[in-house]
């Protein structure tokens, strides 16, 4: 079994050597002339504004998380649709419960204002203080 991995090893070695040799050749051949425009980030022809290493707004992650939940829902619905006919009513109720659980989560996110881009933070703090 281990001997089968020799192919992988040869591939890895060749790959590493190839990359190293190409980079080395390029370094020997190319002119070294760094200037400001050359060193700037390539943004599809646009002039870059500021650094690309900025802190993204954390709310993007919340939106992404919510998106993932509904993505997964669809992933579950496809196989369900395939076997729906053969499984009958039980599959129907099954998926209805599943969607119901997801809907509760969705309603929660909605009600708690996680879908609003502009947040009323003052209100939130008040609520926190009133929490005895």
């Amino acid at each position, binding site marked *: *079994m*281990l001997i089968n991995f020799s192919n992988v090893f040869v591939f890895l070695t060749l790959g590493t050597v190839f990359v190293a040799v190409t980079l080395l050749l390029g370094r020997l051949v190319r002119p070294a002339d760094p200037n400001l425009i050359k060193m700037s980030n390539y943004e599809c022809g646009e002039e870059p504004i500021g650094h690309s290493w900025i802190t993204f707004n954390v709310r993007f992650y919340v939106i992404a998380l919510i998106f993932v939940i509904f993505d997964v829902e669809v992933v579950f619905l496809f196989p369900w649709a395939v076997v729906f006919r053969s*499984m009958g009513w*039980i599959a129907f109720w099954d998926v209805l419960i599943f969607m119901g*659980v997801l809907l*509760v*989560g969705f*309603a*929660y996110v909605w*009600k*708690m204002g996680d879908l609003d881009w502009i947040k009323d933070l003052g209100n939130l703090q008040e*609520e*926190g*203080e*009133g*929490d*005895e």
Partner: protein
Amino acid sequence: MQTGLTRSLVLIAPELIAALTALIALMGAMLTKRSGAKEAFSIGIIGMLGAAAATVILYERLTLNTAFHALVTIDPFSLFFSLIAYVSVLYVLLMAMDSRELKDTQGSWELVAILSGFGIGMSLMASSTNLLMIYLSMELLSVMSYLLVSYTRGARRSKEAGLKYIIYGSIASGFMLYGMSLLYGMAHSLSLGDILIAFINHGYPRITVYVATLFVLTGFGFKIVMVPMHMWAPDVYEGAPTPVTALLAVASKAAGFAVIMRFFYTAYISSVSVTHYYANVSPIRWLLIVAVVAAFTMTIGNIVAIPQNNIKRMLAYSSIAHAGYMLIGLSIVSRAAVSAVLLYLAVYFFMNMGAFFIVMIVDNSIHSEDIDHYSGLAQVSPGLSAAMTVFLFSLTGLPPFAGFIGKVVVFLAAIDKGLYWLVIVAVVNTVVSLYYYARVIKKMYLETPPEGVQPVRVGLVPALIIISLLVPTILFGVWWTPLQSFAHFSSFMY
């Protein structure tokens, strides 16, 4: 098909009840004003009581059953851990009601929902007999723990702990996933039973099996705070709100042991429980690895616990040491060993939960977790100090208390298999541990309290909770037969 599904659903009734609790809690958060702490906790407590009751009913009705195409196996072993899961969550809810740290947090409804999810995850971890299911339930437990650790709003310590926990946890689960993929590559199946058959029928290269096993063990070891993966525990235990620390120290660890035992006893060990025949069928000597790791775990835990000044940190290292004692039960293969670990976990639940509960009550009153601030506590609140003394002596393993029985049973199982060196290491470690537990007791009893210190207020409900933990800690120390037979029956695994 339909009857199979109904049967499966009946078998996971406790999890369904807990899931329903979580859903109701989420709806409660939406429909009520955010101040409904009382209602939230009542729903949570009722839900957990229901789940625990369903577990007990299942435990009495059946011996073993697979559900959902053998993704989960419901047997006495898994139900034992389900019971620990729901009872721990119940106690943590009761603790959280009094907690100063959790008082002004995001919301009690969400806390109930997250804790119910934790219970489901732990319960499923103990019953999974499929690598995919193990991974999923473990992630459920982990994500809930990450949320719980950073639950205190605004507390930097808690946020830092949460971040550390999530980073360590992700790496550990990445390792585990890699190990699982290697196992899948060898056995061409995710089912633990199929892996066992593959081990019997094929001779796999040792190195691959070693790598796969060690990687999987990394993920599991992270949960039980096994030594090379123990770095996160002190920081996280210290930073998390005390009820959550208790949950991590008791329930999370129990879940880790459940999944380790399930994994090794189903996939690596060929067994016939009736004739007490157990044989390691994998090509590697993993028992020796576990034994060495156990020795390191208890030694490092105990030695580093000595200089700690924060009591939660001290208890974190003590929990590392206890993981080491319990790992002794995993470095031998016998039914006695499994039942010894179960007994130890049950005892550990009472004494550790009790110790953390008192730490929390003292913290509520004096706003400090420093051991130095426990000076003279016995003079101002003698009852609380006496209870703390019992829990700490029990954690040490002194004779009249339950901790002693737990240790003795594990050591006897090891001596039975001739693992003398490990038992000697463990006994020496127990002596070392007496020093740091007794230091707290010395502070409480032999030092004078600072000027003008108020007695710690203990309400009626917290007092009753402490008594409910204190009584088993003393009772099982002198009359352990019921607990032992319960553990022995629960050690039955499919």
